[in-house]
């Protein structure tokens, strides 16, 4: 049976309007608006979907979600379980806030290894909090396995010992045959994750996450080792002021807009 590890990160909800986005400049932290729960990083749900589609296509597999973080919202992190993932491994540790991408990759590599390894590691193309797109690449480097980024379609080869992958590339796509084991990052072009049904939600409620700390992984101190330190975090202000074009009605406003743009030599 194929073992698929999916790396999924808890991040602040990205659907809040920019005007509600606040930071604590002294604490170098983002302050989510009150009452807005976090989400599973969107691309990571695309990665879960990619794993489920392999199963739909007849690939027998165990799908295990790995997440490094703290202050987990369990009902949020259980979403992948509710749509069909089998297990949830949480590395739940205060230290995780101080991890840079390399530190996070080391922790994930160790957690996956301790769980018996994986034939395929799927991750999102990037995490929507710090927008780095580094962790999975580093993970492939640490695990010494091939990497394919920006996957939009994933199937198993006929003989079942490699993957057939379509990745988004400049001006089109690339078809790649990828040996196993491998690390892949999934992009939204693959398609949205399916909705959970009631049965799935009930099943997920009963499942308990398997939690560990970084110390449990036996890799020593991985906190960022002074490689990179944030010194400032702030919300930039836009200095643009808009000139609203108004007319007798909306159509008239459209007509006047064209004239105004021509006058300003913009069209």
């Amino acid at each position, binding site marked *: 049976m194929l073992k698929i590890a999916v790396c999924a990160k808890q991040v602040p909800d990205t659907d809040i309007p920019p005007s509600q986005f606040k930071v604590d400049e002294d604490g170098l932290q983002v302050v989510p608006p009150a009452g807005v729960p976090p989400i599973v990083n969107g691309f990571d749900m695309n990665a879960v979907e990619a794993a489920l589609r392999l199963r739909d296509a007849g690939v027998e597999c165990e799908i295990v979600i790995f997440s490094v973080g703290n202050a987990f919202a369990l009902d949020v992190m259980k979403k992948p379980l509710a749509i069909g993932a089998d297990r949830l491994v949480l590395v739940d540790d205060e230290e995780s806030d101080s991890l840079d991408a390399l530190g996070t990759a080391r922790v994930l590599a160790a957690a996956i290894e301790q769980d018996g390894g994986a034939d395929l590691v799927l991750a999102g193309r990037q995490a*929507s909090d710090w927008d780095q797109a580094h962790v999975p690449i580093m993970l492939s480097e640490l695990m010494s396995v091939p990497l394919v980024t920006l996957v939009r379609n994933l199937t198993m080869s006929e003989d079942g010992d490699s993957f057939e992958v379509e990745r988004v590339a400049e001006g089109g796509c690339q078809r790649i045959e990828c040996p196993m084991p491998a690390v892949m990052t999934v992009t939204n072009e693959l398609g949205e994750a399916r909705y959970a049904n009631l049965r799935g939600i009930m099943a997920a409620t009963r499942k308990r996450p398997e939690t560990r700390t970084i110390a449990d992984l036996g890799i020593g101190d991985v906190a960022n080792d002074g490689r*990179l330190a944030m010194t400032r975090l702030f*919300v930039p202000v836009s200095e643009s002021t808009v000139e*609203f074009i108004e007319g007798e009605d909306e159509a008239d406003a*459209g007509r006047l807009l064209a004239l105004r743009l021509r006058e300003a030599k913009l069209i």
Partner: protein
Amino acid sequence: MSSGVLIVGEVIDGGLHPTVRQLVNAAGQIDRDASLCLAVDDAFDVGALENVGVGNVILLEHPDAADDGVDGVYSLLSELVCEAVAQLEPSSVMLAKTDAGSVVSARVAARFGAGLAADCIDLAVNPSTGRVAVTRPVHGGNALAVYEFPGDGLQVVSVRPGAFEAEVADGIPEVERVDVSGVSVSGAVPVLVETVSEAGEGIPLEQADVVVSGGRGLGGPEPFENLRELCGLLNAALGASRAACDAGWIDHSHQVGLTGKSISPTTYITVGISGASQHMAGCSSARNIVAIDKDREANIFSHARYGVVGDWAKVLPAFTAAVAELD
């Protein structure tokens, strides 16, 4: 050169990728004597290095260098750059945050245990600490973060394409050739079966002087026909928000934004796009944003120079008709 910045440039069609000169300018903010290295094969034209703006260029010569991407995932390029870093021992490595640059920067950082700051839009030396300080957009562009590299280890910086102007400087650099033909990728590698070009319709987004984009507010695929008509009149490229692409109304190759294309037209016209920070990340260098949206409070209006508040179905046809009458 055991200190200083090593710029890793990309080669395209035997010449320099447009980001190379941007990197030279960016590197100049922290080191006036940066070197540039390029992985090249025989077909590389050294003439392309004229006026590149650095004094010293290192050509990493490998017969397959130009073919990287052969496995689709830049494995060889990563190995060549790791080899260069091992031999040259720079204090910082600087790349462009392109598809290739993302992979190479993360691989180099993992290999050397280096600090890595991605997608930077500003670089400086902190006068009080003497350390390199970089600024990068985070949380989809909702915030900016400044990072420093506190340790003495290798620093890897990737720079957002388009964030810096291209350097233009007189002179011909000294060129040093390093034979790296012995470097290969070890272990299992993916195999590129085929590259399929999916040429988008119309004028390429990155080159257009005017871009017209549609968003979720259009409500379906049909209104994009209206935008196509407008594009035809304005000689404009057609763009879209991710919401419109994800809905299947238009191909993803038209997506503008953080995970789509970065554009810098003179005039950017949006219709039914709210202006989420991830969208704005791809058009922040547009010089004039013009927005049509029915919500006066939409974020797009805090970036726009001109706006019309209204239903696109009423505003757009009149706008298009008036444009058609302009001469």
